[in-house]
C-alpha cells in the first residue's frame, strides 16, 4: 500500500528509512500545521498526499515551505546546560526511584 509520512523529526525518520516523507520543520506535536491555522494545515496535508504520486523511489523526502515563526524552540527543546544540569540529574534519580516510569532501554 502506498504510504506517506508527515512529520517533524527529520533525523529519526531518515534513520528509520521510509517510502515517502514530508518534513515539516515545526516543534514536535503539530506536524500537520500550526494549531487553529486551518489553511496552513490543509496546505501541508495536500503537500504530503501529493508525494504519493510524485515519488518514484523509496526514501523520497520533501521539505515543507511552511514556517513556524520564531525558531527559539529549536535550542530550548531538551536543552542541557550548566544551569539545569544538577536539576536533570535529580530528575533522573527520581525517575529511577519510581519504578512505574519506563526508562530508556534497549529492547528487542
Amino acid at each position, binding site marked *: *500500500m*502506498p*504510504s*506517506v*509520512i*508527515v*512529520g517533524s*523529526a*527529520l*533525523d*529519526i525518520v531518515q*534513520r*528509520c*528509512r521510509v*517510502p515517502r516523507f514530508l518534513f515539516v*520543520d515545526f*516543534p*514536535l*506535536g*503539530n*506536524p*500537520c*500545521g*500550526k*494549531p*487553529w491555522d*486551518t489553511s496552513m*494545515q490543509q496546505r*501541508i*496535508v*495536500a503537500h504530503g*498526499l501529493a508525494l*504519493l*504520486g510524485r515519488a*518514484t*523511489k*523509496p526514501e523520497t523526502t520533501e521539505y515543507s515551505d511552511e514556517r513556524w515563526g*520564531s*525558531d527559539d*524552540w*529549536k535550542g*530550548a*527543546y*531538551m*536543552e*542541557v546546560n550548566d544551569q539545569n544540569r544538577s536539576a*536533570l*540529574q535529580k530528575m*533522573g*534519580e527520581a*525517575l*529511577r526511584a519510581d519504578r*512505574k*516510569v*519506563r526508562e*530508556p*532501554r*534497549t*529492547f*528487542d
Partner: protein
Amino acid sequence: MDSKPVKYMEKTRRYYEAQGFDRAYQYAEHTSAPFTPLTKPLAECRVGLVTTASTYHRADLEPRKVDVGSTVSLPEKLFTDDLSWDKNATHTEDVNSFCPINSLRELEAQGVIGSLATQFVCAPTEYSQRATVEQDAPKILEYLRGEKVDVALLVPL
C-alpha cells in the same frame, strides 16, 4: 535564529545522559525502505489516516494496543500526554494539527482525494521495535485493508 532541523537523536541522548541514564534509546534503523507506487489517481483513492495519538488515556504500565476512532467528525480531544512532543513550545488542543481529519474532509470535498476511511487508526508507540513490526503493523494494515483503503497517511507526533 536556527534554521537547521533539530538533531533529535543527539539531543535526546545528551538529555538522558544528563539525567544519569546509561543506556541510550535505540531508534529504529533499517538499511532500505519498501516502496509501493501509486497506480491510480489520488482523486480516486480512499485515504487511511494513522496517528500515534490515542483515543483514550493510557496509563503508565498499561499494555498498548492498536485502536481506532471515527472520522465522521474531528474528535474534540485525543490523548497525547504520554508522547514525546515539545510541551513548552506548543500544545495539542487542536486535534487537526496532528490528526488532520478536517483537512482530509476538505480535500475530499474538493475532489483532491476520493474519500476518507470512516475510521482513523491509532498506532501505539512502543519501546519494542519487534512488537511494532510483528504485532502492531499487521494489525494496522488489517484495519486499513478492512476499510478498502488505497493509500495511507501516517502522522507521528
